[in-house]
C-alpha cells in the first residue's frame, strides 16, 4: 500500500499551484505525476512517486550509501583481522 517507485521527470506539463504536474518515466511507462510536494524537482530528476504524488526527490549521492557503508564495514573488519594477526 505504501508502495512508491522512482521515476524520471521527462517534462513539466502544468505549473498551476495545486496541480503542478509532470510526465514521469517509470522504466518506459509514462505517467502524469503531481509535483506539488517537491517544488524543487526539475526535468531530469528522479522522484519517488506514490499514488500519483511525488513524495521526494531522490538524492543521487545518498543513493550510494548502502554500498559505501558495506565497503567501509568490510575494510574495517579486514584491517581489524590483519591487526589481530600482527599482535
Amino acid at each position, binding site marked *: 500500500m505504501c508502495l512508491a517507485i522512482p521515476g524520471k521527470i521527462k517534462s513539466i506539463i502544468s505549473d498551476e499551484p495545486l*496541480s503542478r504536474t509532470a510526465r514521469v518515466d517509470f522504466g518506459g511507462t509514462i505517467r502524469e505525476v503531481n509535483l506539488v510536494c517537491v517544488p524543487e524537482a526539475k526535468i531530469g530528476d*528522479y522522484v519517488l512517486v506514490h499514488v500519483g504524488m511525488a513524495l521526494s526527490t531522490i538524492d*543521487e549521492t545518498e543513493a550510494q*550509501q548502502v*554500498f559505501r557503508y558495506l565497503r567501509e*564495514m568490510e575494510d574495517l573488519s579486514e584491517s581489524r583481522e590483519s591487526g589481530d594477526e600482527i599482535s
Partner: protein
Amino acid sequence: MKFLDEYRDPTAVRRYVRAIAEITTRDWTIMEICGGQTHSIVKFGLDSLLPDKITLLHGPGCPVCVTPAELIDKAIEIASRPEVIFCSFGDMMRVPGTGKDLLSVKAAGGDIRMVYSPLDAVRLARENPHRQVVFFAIGFETTAPANAMAVMQAKQSGLKNFTVLVSHVLVPPAIEAILSSPDNRVQGFLAAGHVCAVMGYTEYEPIAEQFRVPIVVTGFEPLDIIQGIYLCIKQLEEKRFEVENAYSRVVNREGNRTAQRVMGDLFRVVNRKWRGIGEIPASGLGLKEEYKEFDAELRFGVAGKKVEEATECISGLILRGMKKPPDCPAYGTKCTPEHPLGATMVSSEGTCAAYYSYRRLAPLGKSESQRQKNG
C-alpha cells in the same frame, strides 16, 4: 530500473548477511512495521538468510488490513447507492466487512471503480457532475498528502459532488501501543521508509529513548532491508537505542515540509479503531471541521454505525507480532487469498497473504507456538 535494480544485488545482500552473522551474539527480536517490507522479506526469503538468533516479527503496517470492518460496511452501504461512483484502491475490493465485500457490490451492479490515485477520482467527479463521486481514503502518512491534495483540488474547483471516506492511520501511536503492551517481545524496529519520506523521523526519537529500542528508517528493496536489520542488530549489540536513517536517498530528518503542510491544512489527529487491535488514541487522521462538506460519512449519513468484528481470525495477534500465520487454524484451509476470513489475508501486503503466496503451507521457519513451546 535505475534506483531499484541495484538494490536487489544478491552478492551485496549476502555480504550484509555475513556481517550480521558476525556481530550477532544473542537472541534478538525485531519488527518491520510496514507491510511492503513484510512482502519483500517473505518474497525474497530474507528472514531465512538470517542467523537463528534473529526473529523477525511482522507489524501492523498494512493500511488495508487495519481498516476496521465497520468502515468497510460503511463503504459498502455508500457504494450500493445508485447515484454514487465509488472509487477505491484495488486492494480494498476484497476486504470483507461484517458480511459482504466491495467486489460483491460491484457484481450486483454497483458503480465501483478501481483508481490508481485519488486525483483520478477528482477527475471523475469533474467529468460526472450529476453523480456523487466518493473516494475511499485509506492509508498511512505516505498516502495522506495525495488524499489531502484531492480534497484541496475538489474545493478549488468548487466540486459539490466529491467526498472522501477517510480511514487514515498513523504509525508512531501503533509502535507505542505495541511497546506498551505487557507481553511485548519487540526489541527493535525497522521504521517504514515511505512514511518517513513524508513525516521525517523526529517523531520516533522520543519513542526510541523512552522505550530503549533502536529504530532504523528502512527502505523496501532487499538490500535496504538487510542493511536496516544490520544497523538495528548492531545497535542492540552495542546497547544503543537511537533513530538511524538507512534510507537517506529518500528520507531526511525533517521529512517533506510541503507534504506535511498540505496534510495539516486538511486533517486533524483523531482516535482511530484498528482492525484486530481496537481503538488506539490519537492514531488516525480525520477531516478538519472546515472540510466537513467533503466527508462522505456525513453526506451519506453513516457516521454513527458500529459493528462487532468476527472473532475466529487471529490477525489482531499477528498484527501485533504475537503470532505468525501458520499458528492460525484457519490459515490455508478455511482462509486463503481467494476466500479471506481476515484482513491480513486480503491484501498482498498482509502477513497471512505474503506467507500463503510465497510459502504455501510449508513455512520455512518454525511456527510461533512451536518456538514458544521449545523455549
